[in-house]
Each structure stands twice: as C-alpha cells, then as structure tokens.
C-alpha cells in the first residue's frame, strides 16, 4: 500500500505497517549517526519550521538535529500562541509561515488540537511535537523503537505505564501506538492521575497497585511527574508518591529478569525513579530513547516529505 501520510498529528491514524515502515527506516538511518559525517543530503531544499510555543529543549533539539542530519533548511519560530504577549493568533502566525513556502511545520503547543488547527491553515505537512495533554506521536514512535530494538518485537509484550497518565501527552500517543503494534498495556496510577476513560486510549488494565503489576510486565515505562502541569495537588507529597509509585531499588526484585525501564525524560530523581533504577546497566534504556529520538525523527521527516504527490490521509 505504501506510506501516504502528509501529517503526523494523531498516531491512531497510522497503521501497524506505517509505524513499522518508520521504525525500519529509523534503524537504517541510525547508521548515519555513527559516521564521521553525520549527514545525508536527502532532504536538501526542504524547509522545516520548528514552531515551539511552549518551553522545550529536548524535543526541539532532537527535531533540529534530525532535520539537519537529513539536510533540511530549518528555522525556529517560537513563543507565539494565542495567549502570547504579542497577541497574534496561532492562525495568523501560521498563515504568515505558510507565506514563507515551507514544507513542514513541527509544532509544540500547550493547547490540545493546536496541530489540527495549524494544519487547516497551511499547505505544509504538520508534525505534532506535543499538544497540551493530548498527544506526542514522535515520542511514542521513539519509545516503540527503543522497545523494539531491545525486545526484538512489540507484539505480545506487556507494558506498564506508571504515573501521571491524566496529564500525559506521551500516554495519549504511546498507549494507542502500543495497542496498534499488538502489545498489552497496563496503566498504574492513583485515580487522581488517571483520565476519565483510560479504555478510550486503549489501555487493557488499570491498577493503583504497582507491586502487583511489576512481576507481570516486560517493560516498565515511568512517566515524569510534571510539576508544571499538576492542578489541585493530586497527591499529598512527592515522598508519598515515591513510596507508592516510584521505581526503586527495592522494587527491582519484583521485576522480571529481562524487564526494561523506559522514561521520556527529564527524570525527577527520587520522585518517579531512584538513581539505582535510572542508571541500571541492563534495565534502563533511557539514554537509548534519547538516541532513538534522533533516528525516529529523521525517519519521520523522510517519509512525510517523501514526494510531491503525497496523499493527505491524515
């Protein structure tokens, strides 16, 4: 059938085949990152705008590196959203950028649905680099890549995602993506940090008892406690959170011998993870995830920009 997406906004619009295509190309491209000259000329002449309307260092630099290694021309256009001090609406900003004749817009915004809004006002492709607490599809893809590289497959794996599910855009993409690839997903959190309908995301199980779930899973995905996104103090203290939902050295013994630990970064050491687990030589793939981010995003750029008569399935 071939890859026919113009945008990467909603991971649920991608099939298992689409996702595997991206992961396999990411693997091929990982070789480029090992070279002395870490660059291929593939996307020469394509212009990509990184539009980051809320603070982000990691995701933005990962995108930027990926763009540069694929030889895209990139500009960064930050800080403008409807609520910005400039007072220009996101729609007007996008119309302006569209007049620059750009090929792809990578957008991070604090509002859910901002990429969909932007896509209505540009002829360029749009990549969601995180919208509010909705989705973060490239994060999901790099997570899948890391797990796939480590486990050799995604089908039949049991993945526990632990922590602030309710405010997590990572979860918004990762849970459906894991389901598309045939994994089983268990969410672990206090009810104050769960969305109203976890089943809608695709979660198979929901639990508030971390120690019961740990022995059952192949992958433990620890979410960051996003202090900046928490409203109304959903748990009494970080100390108690660490006690109930932190992945600690003591919990290591509950895990399967080959279980791995993922985390989207940046880590709050001592809250969701202790240093023993964060730096665990065999379990932790946290730094592999960072590397996977570059390869996966290079692959996403390759496929989204692949050809002028590209369909617009999404």
């Amino acid at each position, binding site marked *: 059938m071939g890859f026919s997406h113009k945008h990467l906004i909603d991971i649920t619009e991608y099939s298992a085949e689409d996702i595997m295509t991206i992961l396999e190309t990411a693997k*091929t*491209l990982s070789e480029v990152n090992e*070279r002395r000259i870490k660059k291929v000329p593939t996307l020469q002449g394509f212009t990509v705008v990184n539009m980051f309307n809320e603070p982000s260092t990691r995701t933005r630099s990962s995108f930027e590196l990926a763009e540069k290694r694929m030889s895209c021309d990139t500009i960064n256009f930050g800080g403008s959203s409807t609520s910005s001090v400039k007072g220009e609406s996101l729609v007007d900003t996008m119309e302006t950028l569209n007049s620059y004749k750009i090929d792809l817009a990578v957008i991070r915004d604090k509002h859910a649905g901002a990429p969909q809004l932007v896509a209505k006002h540009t002829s360029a492709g749009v990549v969601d680099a995180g919208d509010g607490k909705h989705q973060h599809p490239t994060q999901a893809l790099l997570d899948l890549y890391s797990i796939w590289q480590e486990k050799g497959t995604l089908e039949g794996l049991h993945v526990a995602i632990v922590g602030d599910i309710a405010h997590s855009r990572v979860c918004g993409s990762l849970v459906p993506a894991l389901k598309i690839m045939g994994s089983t997903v268990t969410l672990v959190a206090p009810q104050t940090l769960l969305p109203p309908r976890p089943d809608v995301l695709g979660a198979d199980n929901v639990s508030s008892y971390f120690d019961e779930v740990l022995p059952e899973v192949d992958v433990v995905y620890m979410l960051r406690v996003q202090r900046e996104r928490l409203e109304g103090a959903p748990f009494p203290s970080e100390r108690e959170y660490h006690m109930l939902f932190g992945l600690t050295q003591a919990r290591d013994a509950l895990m399967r011998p080959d279980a791995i630990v993922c985390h989207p970064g940046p880590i709050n050491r001592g809250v969701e993870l202790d240093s023993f687990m964060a730096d665990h030589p065999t379990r932790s793939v946290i730094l592999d995830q960072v590397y996977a981010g570059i390869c996966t995003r290079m692959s996403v750029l*390759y496929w989204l920009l692949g*050809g002028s008569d590209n369909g617009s399935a999404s």
Partner: protein
Amino acid sequence: MSETLQVKSICMDASEIERTLTRIAHQILEANSGAENIALVGIVTRGDVLAKELVGKIAEIEGVDVPFGHLDISFYRDDFATRLAPAVHETRISFDIDGKDIVLVDDVLYTGRTIRAALDALMDMGRPKTVQLAVLVDRGHRELPIRADFVGKNVPSSSDENVRLFLEEVDGVSEVAILQLPQETGAGSALNEGE
C-alpha cells in the same frame, strides 16, 4: 509494476551471467594486481547480490576473502522531491573504507545517476584510495560523465525499454531481459534504473 511489463527479449541467460562474472573477477584482480587492498561494495538490491558472487569468485581464484558491503543509495537520490519516498534498505559496510580500492558493483548502468548517488554516499563514509565501477550490463544513455571500469556486456537499448537483471535467489531465475515500458513513462527517466 514491472511485473506487468512485456518481455521483448532475453539478452543474457544464467550461464552467460555466470561466465561474465568470472571474467569480471579476473579483470578486477588483474587491474588491482591482486586482492590485497580491494573491497567490494554492492548497490542494493541487485548489485549487492552480484558483489557477493564476485567475492566468491575472487576467493576461488586468489584464496582471499575480500571485504564486502551493501550500499543503499535511497538517501542520496536526486529525484527524491519528484517521487514518492522510495523503499529504504539497509546500508551495511562493516569495514573501514579509508585507503581501500573500492569496487562498486551494480547490475545495469544507464543514466549514471545511481552511481553518482553511490559515490556521494561512499564519500560521506570515508576516503577510499580509488573507486572503480563494475556492472553486468551497460545499456548506454548516460546523463552524467560516468563510465564503468568493468563491463559484462554492452546492450544497446532504447529509452522506451527497461533492461533488467533477474536473479535466481531473488526472482527464481537468472537472466537479463529487455522489457517494453508503457508508452507514457518511456521518456528518458532514471526511475527504473537498477530496480
């Protein structure tokens, strides 16, 4: 797509391919005064199969296993913007190409654009001492100043034809066939080169 093309004629059969590869192996060794510094790099998806056969032939003749790698040129194509992103294959070159005499191997030499891309890809990976080119078939119609050092057979063809290598391990039969392209895509395009 090419499955539906009309076969006009077969210009090399399995035994001719076999004999030709043996000759090319000898020529490579002769030109490089032995196998000492050479390495073979085949362009996927047909050139790497031929390169592997050549490695076998060289081992038979010289008793030396020369380094051999696969090169995918998808990321170096010059027609990326005008077509759907091509399927990507893996590049696997596990040896250091610096200072080596690299023999690039491909099946059919046509416009020269694939070889241009392959040269760029190679240069991004290191600095070979020399790069030579071995092809099974040269069908003419060059669009770039590129020529092969070792040619299996010159097959004059028209631009509304496709010259294609079939290989036993991929296609179930080994032969070089001339195929008739459909009318509308006939004009001097590199789209079908090497595929």
